[in-house]
């Protein structure tokens, strides 16, 4: 049963081949058996899952038949879940049982999904390897000596290992797409503002977006359709109707114009990944796509700009963790300053502290123009590149990551070397456009991802291209040995 996709589960439940309760019990047993190898879950919500599964079965018995009714999922542990630990992978949220559900959680609950638990992640979503979690690193099911990517590393590892068919994630600089690429999944970061950020613990508010990770584009379409939409509780939510992503899947690719940015195939890219990506391009050509060489010249400045904007926003967002209102408080504070400093000093991990300090510095008096304003100007240059490119092409295609999944601990000594791994993904966050990663094959037994970038609100087109490719390829069906 664990090999079923969400779409297959919907059919199986509708045809009464199994109940939502049977499915959840089977997956919960699998999680208990296999997750100790991966550490992908922070919390398994067994009682909640069985209660929701029984309720879904009752709703089906009463005649309801919506596709996600009884579908098992789990949430990245930065989506607030009422009454359930929401840790954000941090010691500072020790004991934090959120007093409300995030909008995404509430929407998926309403759709009838069954929540199996909360998934491990880099602390406050800051990382590309899922090694900065207070709850320990997550292992990649394709090779448990390697990282699954981050920051949605628990989501990726759990879905790749068939512990569940799909999960939510968030993407601030590539945190859905990069782990999807390193674990052979499909994941989509929607347009900024498409999915509500309410109840999603903020890292960098002008970049953060929630989205799904699953094994097929079809499943991503199913989940994203339920997650997306206007929310008055999120001041940056976009008030426009959600496209029918499932309906978009079937569109033929004849006439699709693909742009290949030369900056994505230059120095720094593992040539074996480049070959896999070009093989996908050849397949898409057979399906009727045309290809054009393009240039995104400002991309080379994206990493420095991102590492100003994201830490600046983080330093402000994370000021709410003060040891007073929720979460961790240090022992025996001698005064209020001591309470703040020690609660935060002891509660945050090294990478989070680094980013708070970089952001504090960038925003401090005398440096604001040189850092923050400069970064925002570069941000516009990056957006302008995309606006120009999308005049001539429908999607932009390239590798999701420059390298394969690396060994646990390999990039810990030098944070900047890990930052450079985000080179292909962060431009989509800076510009606010949607991006998708899908499986493109294997090198030395490790998954390779290809990234599709689209114009604003073109999620349907990206899912369409990925789905059509998945009709003529089998990479996404491969299962890691031992799972």
């Amino acid at each position: 049963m664990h090999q079923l996709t969400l779409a297959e589960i919907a059919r199986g439940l509708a045809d009464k081949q199994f109940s939502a309760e049977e499915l959840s019990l089977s997956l919960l047993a699998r999680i208990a058996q296999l997750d100790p190898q991966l550490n992908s879950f922070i919390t398994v919500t067994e009682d909640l899952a069985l209660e929701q599964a029984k309720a879904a079965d009752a709703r089906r018995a009463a005649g309801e038949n919506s596709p996600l009714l009884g579908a098992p999922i789990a949430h990245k542990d930065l989506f607030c879940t009422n009454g359930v630990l929401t840790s954000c992978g941090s010691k500072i949220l020790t004991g934090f049982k959120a007093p409300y559900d995030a909008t995404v959680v509430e929407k998926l609950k309403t759709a009838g999904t069954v929540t199996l638990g909360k998934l491990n992640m880099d602390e406050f979503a800051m990382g590309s390897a899922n090694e900065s979690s207070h709850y320990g690193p997550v292992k990649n099911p394709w090779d448990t000596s390697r990282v699954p990517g981050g920051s949605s590393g628990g989501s990726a590892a759990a879905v790749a290992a068939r512990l569940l068919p799909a999960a939510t994630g968030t993407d601030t600089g590539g945190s859905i797409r990069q782990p999807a690429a390193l674990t052979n999944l499909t994941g989509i970061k929607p347009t900024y503002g498409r999915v509500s950020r309410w109840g999603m613990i903020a890292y960098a508010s002008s970049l953060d977006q929630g989205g799904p990770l699953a094994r097929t584009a079809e499943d991503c379409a199913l989940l994203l359709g339920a997650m997306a939409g206007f929310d008055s509780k999120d001041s940056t939510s976009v008030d426009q109707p959600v496209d029918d992503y499932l309906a978009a899947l079937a569109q033929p690719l004849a006439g699709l114009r693909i742009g290949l940015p030369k900056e994505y195939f230059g120095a720094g890219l593992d040539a074996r990944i480049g070959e896999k990506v070009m093989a996908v391009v050849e397949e898409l050509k057979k399906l009727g796509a045309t290809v054009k060489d393009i240039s995104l010249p400002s991309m080379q400045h994206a990493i420095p700009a991102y590492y100003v904007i994201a830490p600046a926003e983080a330093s402000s967002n994370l000021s709410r963790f003060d040891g007073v209102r929720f979460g961790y408080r240090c022992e025996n504070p001698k005064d209020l300053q001591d309470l703040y400093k020690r609660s935060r000093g002891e509660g945050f991990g090294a990478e989070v502290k680094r980013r708070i300090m970089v952001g504090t510095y960038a925003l401090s008096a005398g440096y604001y123009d040189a850092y923050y304003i400069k970064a925002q100007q570069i941000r516009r240059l990056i957006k302008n590149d995309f606006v120009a490119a999308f005049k001539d092409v429908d999607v932009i295609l390239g590798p999701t990551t420059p390298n394969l999944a690396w060994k646990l601990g390999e990039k810990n000594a030098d944070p900047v070397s890990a930052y450079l791994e985000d080179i292909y993904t962060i431009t989509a966050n800076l510009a606010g456009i949607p991006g998708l990663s899908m499986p493109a094959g294997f090198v030395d037994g490790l998954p390779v991802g290809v990234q599709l970038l689209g114009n604003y609100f073109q999620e349907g087109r990206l899912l369409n291209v990925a789905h059509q490719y998945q009709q003529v390829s089998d990479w996404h069906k491969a299962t890691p040995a031992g799972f």
Partner: protein
Amino acid sequence: MALERSEVEKIAHLARLGLNEGDIPQTTETLNSILGLIDQMQAVDTQGIEPLAHPLEATQRLRADVVNESNQRDAYQAIAPAVESGLYLVPKVIE
């Protein structure tokens, strides 16, 4: 431009982050390496470019000035480290 130890201590104070004495040299080194990466921005010509704060250039949405939240003090205080009689407890701030 490299940060000195005293500047790192000042930034940590501004961010209300307690650093262990022993961690400061390593923190200083790593921050300088990150700032070295960030300083690559200075080579980019951005003269006359308007800063971009929001990808869709949206402005703050306004809503009607009506009450739309109920009082949830009990629920919020149930997860606080220390409360008493509906108040959050912190060390004494006025001698």
